[in-house]
């Protein structure tokens, strides 16, 4: 093989490799993002970071403005300490707040920055004071159930204590309806008009069950 | 290298060699003088090629010394061995040409690797060597395109490319037609005289080698059975040498490979039957 032809083909081969690598980095990967911009660091503390990971996005109004740098545990305040790198191009007021949000319903978590109204801007090394932790699904569910039970308990008025969770909701409703029926009957003897009114409202309540 | 005995360029002193515990050669004493053509002969598998490998430092002797002038090759490091080899040329039995290079590039190889000569000078040298072996016209062919005999001639041109002081030939006459036999013998003799070198032939071809050799070593039974000029060996009374030179089928070199006697294999009767 002639020397020049050999060099050409090998050079072409190596070039193909570089092109492939470039393609992978730019088109397939996230290289075009903040890889090479100058950034400044901001700290914040959360009670619960949920599934936030290093390298996750920091967005404001849905636009990526930075990346999560490190996540550590502060054992003095017993909170998670998150440090983020924000693109120098974007300045935020120093009373901005940070929330941990989820992209989509079950997607990856990211930090959302909401600007405050202060005249001063965040400087490198500053800490954001107002934070909202991630929503943890288990807490959400138990919150929902307890509040549902509390609503039904207030309507009956009497002893019907903490209702069992889940599908026992309607059963709880009917027992409290029964209890209020007997309570209503007791009072109804003393105050006939009130009893009728109570019985009526009870009937309406049980009718609504 | 200044030495006391300037005539002997190479000497093997009490050399022994073997694999593991089995000694193939022992008590080898050989002397090679400058300008000599020496034939090393013996039956197949007697260790002739091993002698060449010992000289070329491809294998290490178990005992004894291999001396070049005054230097024992045992004392040389890798660089020293390479420096020594540059003064040697070796022709392998089947040529051992580099199959991915043309004839020209094969012969140019040692020149390119060991000298800084410009390409034009290398070209001239290569063509001269090829001309000496009669293959200047085949310079651009690949080894796969030339015959075995031609391969060997190219390998010869390659071996003498750096004008070595010691030339070694491993079975140079094996498998050649009568014409090539004569040519090869001629080339060996000519190069020896032209280079002022010492040539060592490992062969079992008696007529051709006796025609050009100045001295012959005969190896049998792991040692030197006989040595001398070709005439001395022709007159030798040693039965092994006699069998070899006369090409007799049986003698010290047995015809039959050792094993069970014939009667046992063919179940022949051992008692005589009454007729």
């Amino acid at each position, binding site marked *: 093989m002639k020397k020049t032809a050999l060099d050409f*083909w090998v050079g072409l081969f190596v070039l193909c490799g570089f092109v492939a690598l470039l393609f992978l980095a730019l088109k397939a990967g996230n290289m075009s993002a903040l890889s090479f911009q100058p950034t400044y660091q901001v700290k914040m503390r959360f009670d619960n970071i949920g599934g936030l990971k290093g390298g996750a996005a920091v967005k404001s109004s849905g636009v990526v403005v930075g990346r999560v740098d490190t996540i550590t545990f502060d054992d003095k305040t017993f909170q998670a300490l998150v440090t983020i790198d924000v693109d120098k191009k974007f300045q935020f007021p120093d009373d901005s707040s940070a929330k941990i949000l989820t992209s989509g319903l079950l997607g990856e978590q990211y930090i959302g920055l909401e600007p405050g109204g202060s005249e001063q801007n965040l400087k490198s090394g500053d800490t954001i004071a107002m934070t909202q932790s991630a929503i943890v699904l288990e807490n959400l569910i138990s919150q929902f159930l307890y509040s549902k039970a509390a609503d039904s308990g207030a309507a009956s008025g009497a002893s019907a204590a903490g209702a069992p969770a889940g599908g026992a909701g309607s059963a709880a409703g009917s027992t409290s309806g029964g209890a209020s029926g007997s309570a209503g009957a007791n009072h109804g003897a003393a105050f006939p008009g009130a009893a009728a009114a109570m019985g009526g409202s009870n009937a309406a309540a049980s009718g609504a069950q | 290298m200044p030495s006391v005995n300037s005539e002997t360029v190479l000497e093997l002193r009490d050399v022994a060699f073997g694999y593991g515990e089995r000694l193939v050669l022992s008590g080898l004493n050989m002397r090679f003088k400058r300008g000599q053509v020496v034939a090393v002969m013996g039956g197949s598998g007697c260790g002739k090629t091993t002698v060449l490998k010992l000289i070329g430092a491809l294998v290490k002797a178990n005992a004894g010394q291999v001396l070049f002038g005054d230097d024992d090759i045992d004392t040389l490091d890798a660089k020293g061995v390479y420096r020594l080899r540059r003064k040697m040329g070796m022709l392998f039995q089947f040529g051992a040409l580099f199959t991915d290079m043309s004839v020209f590039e094969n012969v140019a190889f040692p020149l390119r690797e060991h000298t800084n000569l410009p390409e034009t000078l290398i070209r001239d040298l290569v063509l001269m060597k090829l001309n000496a072996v009669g293959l200047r016209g085949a310079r651009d062919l690949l080894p796969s395109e030339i015959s075995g005999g031609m391969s060997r001639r190219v390998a010869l041109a390659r071996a003498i490319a750096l004008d070595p002081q010691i030339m070694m030939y491993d079975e140079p006459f094996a498998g050649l037609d009568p014409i090539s036999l004569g040519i090869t013998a001629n080339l060996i003799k000519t190069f020896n005289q032209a280079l002022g070198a010492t040539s060592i032939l490992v062969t079992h071809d008696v007529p051709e080698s006796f025609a050009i050799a100045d001295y012959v070593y005969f190896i049998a039974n792991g040692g030197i059975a006989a040595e001398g000029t070709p005439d001395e060996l022709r007159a030798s009374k040693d039965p092994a040498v006699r069998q070899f030179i006369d090409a007799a089928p049986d003698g010290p070199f047995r015809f039959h490979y050792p094993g069970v006697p014939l009667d046992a294999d063919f179940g022949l009767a051992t008692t005589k039957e009454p007729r």
Partner: protein
Amino acid sequence: MITALGRHVRSGISRTGYATRMLLRLISMFGLMVTRPRLVTRQIMFIGNYSLLIIGVSGLFVGFVLGLQGYYTLSRYGSEASVGLLVALSLVRELGPVVAALLFAGRAGTSLTAEIGLMKAGEQLMAMEMMAVDPVRFVIAPRFWAGAISMPILAAIFSAVGIFGGYIVGVLLLGIDSGSFWSQMQGGVDVARDVGNGVIKSIIFGLAVTFIALYQGYEASPTPEGVSRATTRTVVYASLTVLGLDFLLTALMFGN
């Protein structure tokens, strides 16, 4: 029997030592690429360029299959748009380096072993030694470095072609939205972590496979069946080594 076992272990250990010494020698000769570039580029041609066809076609088909299988599975959860991400991550992190290395072992590895083995059988290596040229430096080392250079290039091309194959199947054939195909991919493929680690893997695989191929050829018995056994050993050892190293490297790189 104990002595036989002991002898086996001893010879195994000394063979490992010998192989390691050879590997270190080859690594120390990387200056060859500067002093004798012609030797190395010639080998890159034989090892790299000539493997392009099998690597390219295999990459394409692997991409096709990933796209198809990914689509079938992801459509169950309504996440077809993530096919791009699936294809890209699978290729860049694992399949690119590993499959390319296995194909490389089969194609380039066996030809290296056979070539060196036949050179040994034809006494070419010994002839070179006798001409005071170190065959390890002249024959083995250029092939070693050519393999080390070619492997990452082939792996990158495999991954890139595979992603393209996934694009063809996902977007052009199955109708996934092109925009979400690429954006999902870009969102999930981290250059430093995924692409970078994949490149590191392919470099290590290249060194390992090429070394095994060259070593087996160099140590082959100089007979036809010796060479054929050596080529078989190359494929087996190289493939197992690649898979084993892959496990190790994946655990190290993607562990946390």
